[in-house]
């Protein structure tokens, strides 16, 4: 008796979202990236289609994080003081599909940079690279509400991905996206119910569901990775079942989460039994990304070029000709 593969039939699909705008669409990017469109569970090519490969974004900072782990400092080098040059290195040397600019320097407890200074940073990165941008605030709601509209404005028409809108702070970000033609990241604290709620709030505020990417505050390996993974999986199942409020592509901040872990960042002299620091840290990051690849994540925001290269190799080997 011939074996017949039992296949799931799904009613829904993940939304398609395109980031970036070329000259033809009123922007200045040299290309755009599209994510989503999946009609089945991740990596199950026999059951559904994955029309677009997951995307690797690399993160640059306006002001480099205090105590950048030494493998990161070595990989990035002197350009870590210059976001534009850092971004160019990510694209030209490390092969990033997207650059994610994090404006941590705006945080009142950090450099408290002004909206105007932050906007200058965004402009410098836009000029330095041709790939589309993700632009993140500093995470302090009041300050982000001052900084992000100005940054959105200077990038008007570039169809960037702006982060983030939360349940308690979404109106300003949504308005900025609507005004300047950007896409929006909705954020939830590892909570699928809150994720769905933010999406409803943002959509009620007038932003089309097709302009949203979802972000669950990522947990790195050893620090909640399995929670993030299982929420991604459940979110994908909801999308495939036809829940339009959870059908957006997903993003994970892999680099910044993983390099927080002591296991990733501890120098060799502190923990010689843990082995080579650069290898350990980059594997920490790549393994976390690998789990999220299986969970259905679409955009990976990475730090280290070696981790990004390992992730790219995993995508190539797992997806083959599929997408």
């Amino acid at each position, binding site marked *: 008796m011939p074996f017949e593969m039992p296949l799931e039939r799904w009613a829904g699909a993940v939304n398609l979202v395109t980031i970036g705008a070329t000259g033809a669409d009123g922007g200045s990017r040299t290309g755009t990236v599209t994510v989503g469109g999946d009609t089945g569970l991740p990596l199950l090519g026999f059951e559904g289609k994955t029309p677009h490969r997951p995307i690797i974004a690399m993160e640059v900072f306006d002001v480099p994080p205090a105590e950048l782990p030494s493998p990161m400092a070595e990989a990035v080098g002197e350009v870590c003081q210059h976001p534009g040059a850092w971004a160019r290195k990510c694209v030209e040397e490390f092969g990033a599909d997207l650059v994610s600019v994090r404006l941590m320097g705006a945080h009142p407890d950090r450099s408290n940079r002004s909206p105007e200074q932050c906007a200058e940073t965004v402009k410098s990165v836009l000029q330095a690279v041709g790939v589309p941008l993700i632009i993140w605030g500093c995470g302090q709601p009041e300050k982000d509400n001052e900084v992000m509209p100005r940054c959105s404005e200077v990038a008007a028409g570039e169809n960037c991905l702006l982060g983030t809108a939360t349940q308690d702070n979404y109106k300003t970000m949504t308005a900025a996206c609507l005004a300047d033609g950007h896409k929006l990241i909705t954020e939830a604290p590892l909570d*699928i*119910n*809150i*994720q*769905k*709620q933010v999406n*409803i*709030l943002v*959509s*009620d505020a007038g932003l089309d569901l097709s302009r949203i990417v979802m972000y669950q505050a990522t947990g790195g390996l050893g620090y909640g990775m399995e929670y993030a993974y299982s929420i991604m999986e*459940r979110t994908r199942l*909801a999308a495939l079942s*036809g*829940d*339009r*409020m*959870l059908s957006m592509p997903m993003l994970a901040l892999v680099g910044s989460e993983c390099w927080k872990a002591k296991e990733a960042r501890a120098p060799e002299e502190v923990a010689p039994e843990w082995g080579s620091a650069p290898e350990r840290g980059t594997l920490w990051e790549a393994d976390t990304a690998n789990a999220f690849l299986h969970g259905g994540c679409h955009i990976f925001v990475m730090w280290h070029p070696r981790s990004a290269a390992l992730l790219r190799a995993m995508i190539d080997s797992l997806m083959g000709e599929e997408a």
Partner: protein
Amino acid sequence: MYAIGERINGMFKVVAAAIRDRNPEPIQKLARDQLAAGAAALDVNVGPAAADPLEAMEWLVKTVREATDAPLAIDTTKPDVMARGLELAGPGSIINSTKGQQEQLDIFIPMAVEYQATLIALTIDENGIPRDAAGRSEIALRVVAAAMEKGLEPDHVMIDAVILPVNVTQPTPGHVLETIHSIKLLSDPPPKTVLGLSNVSQGTTMRELINRTYLVMTLAAGLDAAILDVLDSEMMDAMIAAELLLNRAVYCDDFLKAYRSGRA
């Protein structure tokens, strides 16, 4: 739950008058209102008073089609009226309904195949409505077997276990729940289950309370679809909450709004 709006029915005075006067506006408003209220499909029934049922159905389906592309459940017992309604409504329509006796299945199953329609089959046959759940399941099994034989997939069959007014026969609601549950074991994939819900409260006081309470009970038993008054917003709220409690939707604080806007 797959909600089929019941309001475009000549039993209602507004609809009967609109059909008589060939006045499209009340019909199209009912179509739009029911879809906005959460209906996935619309039942269309010319009612018992229509002078020429065939011509009335033609007008009614065309009139609704001008307002929406949503699936229509053509509600008639007359094969010629059904065929014409399906033809005008297009593929993906619903036949409402056939009974379980062979003569009727011989007519309506091939019709479902020809028009790519889903077939609603009542668990009634030449002997009437069975007294218990076993009798209902037996008719359902016969329908599913006949459908598969003629090339109609089980998931294009919806079994209606026929609810009767609670003030006429009180054991029936329990029998219907049992039937809904056992029908899921008939085949793989199983047929869908549907119910003409409002009949449960016919002739009672507090119809809305009885309707929504029984709807929640049937959902818990596994009901897939219902023909019901989607404009009863309290009932639809109860249905949405039940879907949530059955883990068929992901919770969020605005879950009522999420369910409704998810269908827009």
